[in-house]
């Protein structure tokens, strides 16, 4: 079983990333760096899309679909990161 103790401290609480090895720390920096770039680009895109689109319902729907995929992948990545020792 993978050790997820550095992610979940107690039910309902969430601890930020605390690397347990150098490899995990370096991989974490790369992963969170990529995540940050993607998040910034996503925010700009969502802002432009919602502000300037002629059909707000379509813009909102597509944005929500994108965000669901983005957060799913981000959480999956965070879990995978913890498996790296």
């Amino acid at each position, binding site marked *: 079983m993978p050790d997820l103790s550095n992610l979940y401290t107690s039910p309902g609480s969430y601890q930020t990333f605390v690397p347990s090895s150098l*490899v995990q720390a370096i*991989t974490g920096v790369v*992963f969170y760096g*990529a*995540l940050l770039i*993607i998040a910034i*680009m*996503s925010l*700009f*895109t969502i802002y*432009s*899309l919602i502000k*300037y*689109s*002629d059909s707000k319902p*379509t*813009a909102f729907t*597509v944005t929500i679909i*994108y965000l669901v*995929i*983005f957060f799913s*992948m*981000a959480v*999956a*990545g965070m879990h*995978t*990161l913890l*498996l*790296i*020792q």
Partner: protein
Amino acid sequence: MRELFPGQEENERIYLVIREHWFTLLINMIIWFAFAIVLTAINYFLPLYISAAALAPFQNFITLFKDIFIMFMCLGIFMTWSLYFLNIKIITDQRIVEISYTSIFSHTISELSITKIEDVTSEVAGVFGNIFSFGNVYVQTAGKEERFTFDNVPSPDKLERLILNLYDQRIKDVPNGIVREIEP
């Protein structure tokens, strides 16, 4: 009334809001889905040729790389669709407006008064253009800007006819070749 573009007048009647034909979006999307095919191929062939790739710790690195790859791919698809969706041409009874996004960070809004139109040309070119009925419409103006181009729009012949009809409605010839606008 909802404002579609800056400077829109209250009594201005919008006839058409048009985007590029869906086929152009499809072509852009196919490029992004090619990345998905590459990912699927890596997923399938890598463990066959490098057996260690399927075992820890390398498996986790590969899974993480795939996560980042998919996130970038989704962002690319999202941005491509957003640019397609935001690039619109609006035809009203007074003007033609083009809102053009070259990237998410920059956009230009061009306007052309219906009264300044001199010539409208539609063009359907290529195999897919003929099959799916899309093409370009060129609007020649009297002003400094030589041509106003609608690229890859659906049914260019109908669009051309609409612009000319609006021009006819808007303009009335008067003696000595001088034109005046008809009050709406």
